[in-house]
C-alpha cells in the first residue's frame, strides 16, 4: 500500500499516519481500497498530518501586491511603475464586497470585489485625496474618518458622486514640529462613541522643529504638544489627552469589553514591542512624552524624576504613575515591530480564537496573537506566534464580513520580509483547526493552558514536554533592551483535565512583572500532532490569588 501511495505522489511523511498504531488506520486502509478520494477525506477527518504548516490552517490570498523598483529604504523610493501605490495605512470594511483603504501618499480608495477568490475583478475608485500621511481609517457616521499628521478629519460625499467633497476637521491641536517621526494614528471608536488617536514621539528635534515644541523644565524634556500621548475626541469634538509615554503607537484597538489598547514599538525607553491598556492618567514608558504633563488638560502631573537604568519591575515600584504593559511581545520571538490590533469578533468564522487580539507585524511580515485576562482588575496575558509569510510588512488589519482578515501592507522606510513592497492580502481560515495553545491563564501556583484540541495524556503528563523560564528588561533611555535576570522555572506537575483540553502546570519560581516563556515542544495532540506554535509568552504582572 505504501508503494501505491508513493505512486500517486504521497510523501513518506504522510504515510506515517497509516501506521498500525494509529487508531484510524484500519478504516483508512479499507477506504483506500474504495478509492483515493475517500482516503484523502479520511486523512482530513483524522485531522492528522505531519506536514502541518500555517498554510494548512490559514491561507493567504493576494488581492493586490506590488514590488517597487527601489529598496524599501532607498532615498529615491518609487512605487512600481504600473498601478496604484497601494501602501495601505488605514482600512475599514464598507460592506460584503467593498473595502475602504487609506494609502500613505494621502489618498482614500474604495476597493470593490475584494472577497473574490481568486481576486480577478477587483476595481479601484478614488474617494479622497490631498491627505497628509493618513494612518488610519474608520467607517463611521456615513463618512470615513482618518487621522492625518495634523488633524482628525471627516471625509464625506455630500452630493452622491462617490467622491468626498467635505474634508472637515473634527479635532486638531496637537504639536506638529515637522519631524518625520511624528506619525499620528487612528481613529478607532470606543463604546462611548469617543474617537481615539495616538501620537508618535519626535526624535532628535532640531532647528525650526524646536520652535514648535513645549518645554517641561523639571524633567527638561522638549517635544511637540501631546507627543507620545493617547488622545480621545469626544462626540462634541473635544480633544482630550488620556495617557502618556508612547514611542511609536501604530496600533489602536478595543477588546470585547470596549477597553482601548495600543501597541508600541521597541526603541528608546521601550525595551521591546508591547501591548498596553489605555486609560486615564496612566504613563507607559517613553519619558519624553512627559514634556506635556503640565499642560492644561493633562491628567498626569508633578512627576519629578524618571528612573533610568533599572530592571523594569524595580522601575515600576519606584515610579507610581508607570503601569506595566498588558503584554510584552519579546523581540524576535514575537516579531520586531508591532503594528495594528485586530479583535476577532467573527463568532468563529476566523477559527478558534474569537475574542482574542491579533497584532500586525511589520519587520517579519506576519501576525501574532494575544490572549488577555483580567487579574485584580488589570489586563495581562500571553502572546503567541500566529502567521508568517505575508508579502510585505503588515501595517493594517481589518476583519471582513465573512470573518476573513484583510492585511494592508507597506514596508517603505524600514525593511520587512516578503517579496513585495505594498499591497493587500487576505487571510482566510481553511476550516481546519490547528493544534495551538488557545488560552494561557495565571494560576496561584502556575498557569492553566487551554488547547484547541484534546491533548495526548502521556505527552501532557511528561514533564520533559514543557520548559519555562522568565525574564524582564531594563528600563532605560537607550534603544531596546536585552532580556535580563533570566531564570528557569521548575515545573512540578502537569495535570490534564478530563476533557483533555486543559493542562494545569504547577511550578516553582513565579515572579511578578516578569515575562514567563513557555516552550511546549514535547506536547502532542490526541492525534499525535505537535503544536503548530509551541511557544507562549505570558506577562505575569500579577499572580492570580487563590
Amino acid at each position, binding site marked *: 500500500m505504501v508503494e501505491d501511495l508513493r505512486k500517486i505522489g504521497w*510523501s*513518506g*511523511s504522510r504515510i506515517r499516519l497509516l501506521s498500525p498504531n494509529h487508531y484510524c488506520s484500519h478504516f483508512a486502509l479499507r477506504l483506500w481500497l474504495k478509492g483515493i478520494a475517500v482516503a484523502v477525506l479520511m486523512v482530513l477527518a483524522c485531522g492528522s498530518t505531519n506536514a502541518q504548516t500555517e498554510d494548512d490552517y490559514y491561507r493567504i490570498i493576494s488581492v493586490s501586491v506590488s514590488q517597487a*523598483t*527601489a529598496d524599501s*529604504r*532607498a*532615498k*529615491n*523610493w*518609487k512605487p512600481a*511603475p504600473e498601478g496604484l*501605490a497601494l501602501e495601505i495605512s488605514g482600512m475599514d470594511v464598507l460592506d460584503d464586497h467593498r473595502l475602504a483603504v487609506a494609502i*500613505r*501618499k*494621502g489618498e482614500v480608495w474604495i476597493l470593490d470585489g475584494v472577497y473574490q477568490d481568486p481576486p480577478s475583478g477587483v476595481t479601484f475608485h478614488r474617494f479622497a*485625496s*490631498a491627505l*497628509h*500621511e493618513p494612518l488610519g481609517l474608520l467607517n463611521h*457616521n*456615513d*463618512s470615513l474618518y482618518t487621522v492625518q*499628521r*495634523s*488633524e482628525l*478629519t*471627516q471625509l*464625506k460625499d455630500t*452630493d452622491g458622486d462617490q467622491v*468626498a*467633497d*467635505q*474634508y*472637515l*476637521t*473634527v479635532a*486638531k*491641536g496637537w504639536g*506638529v514640529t*515637522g*519631524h*518625520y517621526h511624528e506619525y499620528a494614528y487612528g481613529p478607532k471608536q470606543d463604546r462611548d462613541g469617543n474617537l481615539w488617536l495616538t501620537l508618535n514621539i519626535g526624535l532628535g528635534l532640531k532647528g525650526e522643529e524646536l520652535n*514648535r515644541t513645549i518645554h517641561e523644565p523639571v524633567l527638561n524634556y522638549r517635544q511637540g504638544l501631546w507627543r507620545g500621548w493617547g488622545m480621545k475626541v469626544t*462626540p*462634541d*469634538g473635544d480633544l482630550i489627552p488620556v495617557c502618556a509615554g508612547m514611542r511609536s503607537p501604530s496600533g489602536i484597538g478595543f477588546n470585547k469589553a470596549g477597553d482601548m489598547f495600543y501597541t508600541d514599538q521597541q526603541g528608546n525607553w521601550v525595551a521591546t514591542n508591547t501591548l498596553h491598556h489605555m486609560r486615564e492618567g496612566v504613563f507607559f514608558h517613553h519619558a519624553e512624552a512627559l514634556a506635556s504633563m503640565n499642560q492644561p488638560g493633562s491628567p498626569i502631573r508633578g512627576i519629578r524624576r524618571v528612573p533610568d537604568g533599572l530592571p523594569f519591575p524595580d522601575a515600576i515600584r519606584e515610579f507610581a504613575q508607570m503601569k506595566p504593559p498588558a503584554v510584552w511581545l519579546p523581540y*524576535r520571538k514575537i516579531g*520586531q515591530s508591532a503594528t495594528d490590533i485586530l479583535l476577532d469578533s467573527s463568532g468563529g468564522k476566523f477559527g478558534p480564537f474569537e475574542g482574542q487580539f491579533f497584532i500586525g507585524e*511589520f*519587520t*517579519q511580515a506576519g501576525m501574532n496573537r494575544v490572549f488577555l485576562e483580567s487579574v485584580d482588575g488589570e489586563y495581562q496575558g500571553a502572546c503567541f*506566534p500566529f502567521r508568517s509569510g505575508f508579502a510585505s510588512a503588515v501595517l493594517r488589519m481589518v476583519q471582513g464580513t465573512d470573518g476573513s482578515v484583510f492585511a494592508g501592507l507597506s514596508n*517603505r*522606510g*524600514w*525593511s*520587512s*520580509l516578503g517579496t513585495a513592497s505594498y499591497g493587500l492580502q487576505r487571510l482566510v481560515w481553511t476550516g481546519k483547526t490547528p493544534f495551538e495553545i488557545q488560552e494561557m491563564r495565571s494560576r496561584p501556583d502556575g498557569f492553566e493552558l487551554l488547547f484547541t484540541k484534546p491533548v495526548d495524556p502521556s505527552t501532557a503528563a511528561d514533564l520533559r514536554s514543557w520548559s519555562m523560564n522568565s525574564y524582564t528588561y531594563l528600563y532605560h533611555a537607550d534603544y531596546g533592551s536585552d532580556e535580563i535576570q533570566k531564570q528557569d522555572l521548575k515545573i512540578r506537575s502537569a495535570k490534564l483535565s478530563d476533557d483533555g483540553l486543559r493542562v494545569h502546570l504547577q511550578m516553582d519560581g513565579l515572579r511578578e512583572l516578569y515575562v514567563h516563556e513557555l516552550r511546549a515542544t514535547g506536547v502532542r495532540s490526541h492525534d499525535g500532532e505537535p503544536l503548530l506554535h509551541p*511557544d507562549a509568552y505570558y506577562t505575569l504582572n500579577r499572580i492570580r490569588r487563590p
Partner: protein
Amino acid sequence: MNLSKLVRCDLQTTAIVMMLFLRLGAAQVVVADSGSTEVSSRAGEPGVVPPFVAGFDRFARHGELSAEASGELLLTELSCTACHHSGLPEMQPKPGPSLKAAGGRLQTAWLKKFLESPSGTKPGTTMPDLLNSLPEAERSSVADALVAFVMSLNEPFPEVKASGLTPVPMEFWNRGDSSAGKVLYHQIGCVACHEPDPDHEAVRVPASPVDQLLDQLNPEEIAELGLASEARQINSVPLPNLWEKYNRQSLTFFLLNPEHVRPAGRMPNFGLAPVDAANIATWLLTSRNSGSEAERPSHDSADPSPSPALLQASLVNRGRQLFSELRCVSCHTLPDMPPAKSAVPLDRLRQTASTGCLAETPAGVPFYGLDELQKSSLRSAIVQIQGPGSDQAAVLENRPAGLETVPDAAESRLLKMNCLACHERNKRGGIARFRKSWFETVGHVDIGDEGRLPPGLTGVGARLTIPWLRDVFRGRGTLRSYMTVRMPQFPENIVKDLPELLRQSDSTSTDPVAESKVFASQSMPSLVAAGRALMDTGCVQCHSFRGETLPGTVGIDLEGVASRIHPQWFHDFLKDPGAVKARTRMPTFFPAGRSQNKEILGGDMELQIAAMWAYLKELKTQPLPEKIVHARSQNYELTPGDRPIILRTFMRQAGTHAVAVGFSQKVHFAFDAEQICVAQAWRGRFLDAEGTWFVRSAPPADPLGEQLIDLPAGVPIADLPNESHVWPQNSREAGYRFQGYRLDKAGVPSFLYRFAEYEVNDRIVPTEDHGLQRTITVTRRISHAPTDQGKRENPKPVEHAIESNRPVWFRAHIAKVLKMVEGTPAEVPAVISGDNLRIAVAFSMADSENPTSASGRHTIKDGRIRKSGDLFEWLILLAMPETADDSVVIEVNYKW
C-alpha cells in the same frame, strides 16, 4: 632527509606515533626499493581526484600560465607553505578552515569519513590525506581520536542582530525556503564558481556577442582567433553531499559569514540577509542535485552536539596530540595549540628528491593525490624560487618581465582569490562559457553584457581610485544594483594591499595624472553649467543621476564618479570609449575627435570633456540635468488641469498644517490651517509632491514657481479691547477653530473656521489678471455645527465670546512698508506694500439665501494703518452680523 625531519620530533611521544613512524619507515622502504610509479598506498583507488584549484584548473591546464606561475599558485592554494615555510610575502599559505567551533558545525560521521579519505569524500578537496601512510587497521582509530578532538571544539553560533532593518525570525535557519534558495544561488553569483543546477530554468537572456560568434566557429577557427579561452567550459569548485557535513544551522551561519569559518576568504561574503542564507542553505541541503528530501536525514532538529561517548576525555586528548603531531594545526590553527614544527623550508627543498609530497609514490607525507602536471608545476616553481643563489630578493628581480603567462603580484592575487571566475583581466578569465545565462539584469532589461556580467578588470588600476577600490573590496561599492550578481566582500587582510597592487600593475607612475593636468581649463566658471547641458546630449539616456533617471533607463549612477575614476581615464574614455574599454556600449560623442554639439563651448572637445567632469564632480549639489528634471516632474510635479489640485504638506512659509491649492491659471496659494491665514502665493509651476508622498524624512514642499509673495502669519479677524491693543498672535487664543474645507462642484475649496460666535467661509480663487480674489463670509453661528460628529441637543458654548460693543477688526495686511493707494473708490480702498503687493478690500452684507454673493458694497467706516513693532498693519472696522444666518462678506483682492 625530509621524512626523518618530519617525524623526528614525535619519536618519543605516544605509541600511536611510534606506530606511525614505523609505518612511514616501511613506506619509505617501498619507495626506495621498488621505485615503482604504480605502487602507492592509495593511488589508483577510485575517488582520488587531484586537488581542485580553480585558477590552476582553468588556466594552467591549458597552457595559459607558465609552469612556474602555476606551481606558485599551487604552493599557496594547497597550503604547501604552511609546512614548508617561505619568507616570500606572496607565498603565504591559504589557511585552512577554523575548527574552533567545529563540534557544533560538522556532523561526526562525515568528519570521520572525510579524515579517512578526504578526496574520496570530497573529490577535488585541497585537504590532503594525513592518514594515508598508516596501516589500514589503524586509520580508523586515529581518525576516531581526531574526530573526538575536533568535535570537542565548540563555540556557540554568533548572535545575529535583529533590528528594524534586519528581519531575523526565530530559528530562521529552520525556516528556509528551498525554492527561493535555488533562485538566489543561481542569481547572486554562486554559479560563477560552483556548479549550476542543470534543471534550473534561467531566464533566457540574449547570448553574449562573443558567445554568438563562438557558436558559429569550429575549434580550429576558435584557436586561430585566440578565442580558446573564451570558448572553454570550466570545472566547478566542488560542493558534494553537503547534507552529510552540515546541518541547517551550521550551513546558514557559514553562508552568513564565511570568513568566520574560512579565514582564507576564498569563499567570500555575499552580504546575505539571514533569511536568504537560510533559503540557500535549505536548498543546498535538501534539494540540490536532485534526490528528494525524504531520503536525507532531516536537518530541522539535527542535534549538532556529538555523543558523550565520542567526547571521552582520553580519546579527545589523544586526538589533540595527533592534531599537533600530524601537523593538522599548521593549516587549522587553534588559539591554544602551538604551531607544529616546520618541515624543510621552501627554499631548501631538494628539487630532485624522489621522496616527499612530489614523489611518484608519496609516502610518509600528506597525500594530495597530485597529478603529473601539478607536480611538474610545483617543481618548476620551487626551482624558480630557489633560483641561482637562492637569494629571495634576487628571485623577485629575476622574474622574466612582460610574459603574458607570468602574472604579476596583482594578478597572482586575483588568481588565488579566483576573482577571475567573474572578472576578465588582460584576456584571462571572466564568467565562463555556458554560465553567462545565469547572470541577469534586474527586471530583464537588455543593456548588453555590461549590464549583467561583472565588469572587466583590464587596466582597472589606472581607472579606479584607490579609495573606491577599497570600498568595493569591503562590499561598499554597490554601483550596479541593476545586476542580480553581487560583488562579494573579501577579508580585509587579504585585499587590503590589492588596490595598490592593481595600481602598480596598471600604471607606470606612482601618482595618477592630476586633474589640473588632464583638464587644463577646469577653472572656467561656466564649465559646470556647460557640463550640465552636455549631460542631456546623451549621458542621460543610459545613466542615472542621484538615483533619478529617464523612464525605463538603467545604468551606473554618475554621482561620485569623480571620486571613483581617475581624471585621465575619464578623459580618454569620453574621447574614445572603445579604445579604452573593448566592446563597451558607451558610444563615442566625439567621432574623429570632434564634438557633435557645436553650441556648447564652441564645440571644443577638450573643453566639453572638462565641463562634464566639472559638473559631475559637483553633481551632489548641482541641479540635475534638465531632461532628468523634466522626467521626474512627470511623476511628481502637480500640474493643475480642469480642477484645482490640493496638497496638504509641510511648507516653510505655511508651516506644518499647510494646505496648498494650485489652479490651472498658474496662480497658487498656501493656506496655513494652524495660524488660519493665507501664508504664501505664487505664479507659474505649482508643487512637487515626491517629498510628501514618498520620502520618509517628510521634507517641506517648496513652491516651484516664481513671483512668490509671503504673507505674515496672523488671524484675519479679531476683537481688540482698544485701538492700540496688539493683534492676537495665536489663533487658538484668539478663539479660532479650523474646521476643514469643502469642495464646490469645480473642486475649489472653501476653508471653514470658527471665530468666537461666528462661522467663517474663506474662499480664494485666481483673478483674470493673475492675482487672487479672496471672499471671507462671516455668519453668526447657528445651532448646527458644520461637522456631522454626533447629533447635539445643545450647541457647545463658544470658547471665546466677544464682549458686546467691542469693535471687531479685519486685518487686511501687514508689511514692513505699507501705504494707501490714492484714487481708489471709497468703498474699495487699497494699500500697497514694499514688495509691490496691492491689496484692495470691499465689504458687503450677503443675501442669506446666497451667502457668497455680495448684495451691495458698503463704505468702510474706519480703515487705518497702524504701526506695530517693525511692521505696519492695515485694520478695517467690521460691522458684524447680529442675527443667525446674517452674513458679512469681505472681498480682498491681491495683485502683484
